[in-house]
């Protein structure tokens, strides 16, 4: 079976799509060097370096998508969307509604996200909840190479704006660029199953809005995305040793949510623990809980999310982000809690 690293899978899927669809172009800072393999295959008309002008090139990418191109706009990291968020939330997300459904902005915004390598709170945020809050935006967070490539294919076929987030801890390329810089003296807690894994011979889209059950269980549902999936899988092993059967639901898509899979799993287990590297307040964890409450499904609830600005100090960062020990402890605590 063919295996690939997380970043390789995305770029391979992109290359496959670019070869068959000449409307796909890539825009981003330093992209001609960062994506040099795509540059030498598809040329500098389609793989374009931008100035450090996010508002201009994201806004232009969105309008170009409205006028027939299929731009993949790359940002250095999702945190930098702060500089140009207007283009995404006030324009890309609104075109379809404003035009009475007659016009869309099929742009893909690709951005590395999340932490685990000690770069501080302005460079390690997840922000998918913040983005998913806006009607009209699709938000994808793959956790394996196969999903990364497959969801990129789906993003490129989507008839609207898609934010495609890549956890940096899964990407050899980003970890080298932003974390180790070639050093052999630093190590990161990289989940091996997420960093490298089996991929299909030919890329097919992974459906948007469809969660994946990574581990079937009956006592508790752990809903998660990105790095959280791998941390939860490790915690599930520890729980299994204690006789607890955890079901791991990798949401893969933050918006639209796969509510049927969530309902099915939580109806079965009666317990939901949300593991979310994004912020706790007003985010994914609260949304999952509200969705279940509206449906009238009885369940015990707990969540493990990032509550503060992510500390720069690596040891404190590890405590601020959901980790295996805390997932294990939270699951145990939730199951021990008396109902009512």
């Amino acid at each position, binding site marked *: 079976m063919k295996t690939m690293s997380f970043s390789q899978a995305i770029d391979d899927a992109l290359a496959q799509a670019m070869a068959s669809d000449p409307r796909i172009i890539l825009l981003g800072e330093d992209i001609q060097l960062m994506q040099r*393999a795509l540059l030498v*295959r598809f040329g500098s*008309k389609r793989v374009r370096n931008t*100035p*450090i002008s996010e508002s201009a090139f994201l806004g232009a990418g969105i309008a170009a998508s409205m006028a027939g191109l299929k731009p993949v706009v790359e940002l250095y990291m999702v945190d930098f969307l702060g*500089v140009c968020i207007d283009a995404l939330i006030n324009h890309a997300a609104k075109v379809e509604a404003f035009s009475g459904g007659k016009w869309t902005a099929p742009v893909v915004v690709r951005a590395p996200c999340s932490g685990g390598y*000690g770069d501080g709170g302005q460079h390690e945020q997840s922000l998918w909840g913040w983005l998913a809050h806006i009607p009209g935006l699709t938000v994808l967070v793959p956790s394996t190479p196969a999903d990364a490539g497959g969801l990129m294919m789906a993003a490129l076929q989507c008839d609207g704006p898609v934010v495609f987030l890549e956890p940096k801890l899964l990407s050899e390329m980003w970890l080298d660029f932003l*974390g180790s*810089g070639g050093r052999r003296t630093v190590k990161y807690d990289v989940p091996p199953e997420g960093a490298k894994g089996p991929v299909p011979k030919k890329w097919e889209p992974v459906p948007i809005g469809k969660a994946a059950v990574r581990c079937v269980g009956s006592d508790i549902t752990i809903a998660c995305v990105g790095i959280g999936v791998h941390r939860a899988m490790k915690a599930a092993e520890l729980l299994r040793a204690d006789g607890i059967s955890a079901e791991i639901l990798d949401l893969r898509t933050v918006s639209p949510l796969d509510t049927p899979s969530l309902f099915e799993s939580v109806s079965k287990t009666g317990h939901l623990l949300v593991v979310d590297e994004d912020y706790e307040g007003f985010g994914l964890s609260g949304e999952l809980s509200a969705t279940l409450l509206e449906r009238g499904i009885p369940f015990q609830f707990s969540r493990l999310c990032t509550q503060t600005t992510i500390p*720069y100090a690596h040891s404190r960062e590890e405590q601020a982000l959901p980790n295996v020990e805390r997932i294990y402890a939270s699951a145990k605590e939730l199951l021990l809690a008396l109902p009512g």
Partner: protein
Amino acid sequence: MQTELWSLYGLMLKSRLFEEAIACLWHEGRISGEMHLGTGEEGIIAGVVDHLRDDDAMALDHRGSAAFLMRGIDPVLILRELLGRPDGLCGGMGGHMHLFSKEHLAASSGIVGAAGPAAAGFALAGQILRPHSVAVAFFGEGSMNQGMLMESLNLASVWKLPVLFVCKDDGWAITTKPAQSTAGNLDERAQGLGVPVVVADGRDVMSVWEAAGKAIERARSGLGPTFLHARCVHLEGHFLGLQLIRILRDPLREIPPIPGPLIKSILQPGGAPFRERLEGLRIVFTVVIATLRDPRRDPINDPLKRTRAILRSEAGRLQELENQIQKEMDNIITSALMEVAS
């Protein structure tokens, strides 16, 4: 002038030794994440910061450690911050891209261009609360394409804010050269917004010191902002471990993995015509060659070596100063690395 040169050299040397120690700690894996050093731009920082007084403010980019040190902020606390220690300047929360000192009105940001609005705001507060104070914004030439910085130049101009906009121009936006990303002329851009421009040689600390002195006096007397444009060479590139610099330093390890994927990609069916593919390859090689040609080794581009060459006429005094600063820095580093008794 000679007196100033001695003290400016002292500032620059202290900063250089400090940042060399930071680089060692980073290579040893004791500092995490990215590390942007100011080595090579000390002439600009020293030439500006030397003019600052108690009430003045600084808005810094992701490369602010040198300015913090030269402003007189405790280097032990800065270094502990970089080590992520709870007894660091910001309790280990910020790291080198997010250094803050409220009492010095010094704030950093890892967001490119953010120093523009921050300096404008510091200057606005200064205009009302601290007459004759100024605010300095430090940023690279790449950030001149960022909307918020251009907007800040305009804002400072119409409000006559006491801002010194300091453009540290090393001719590289990470791996992108200005020819690819920056249209027109930066000085004319600033002038077009009504901000007067002074050009200094960032490799020559006196050139910056003189230009900055006049611009800061102008701001203090209520005449508004100035754009100080100074060229420099960053001795470590954009950040430590940048692949282009690694190619320079360790070609045997860094070059072999590069051609394989490129050759595979250029031969892959489907894609651009062969001519365009070769053009893509040329773009990659141009960047690598520009790095190889980069004038890092030429002492003319190192503000410390240049100043030292002048001060060497008083060899005894120079030796004494260097010994004293080396000793001071050794003590700072020892003290910063000392574990706290718990």
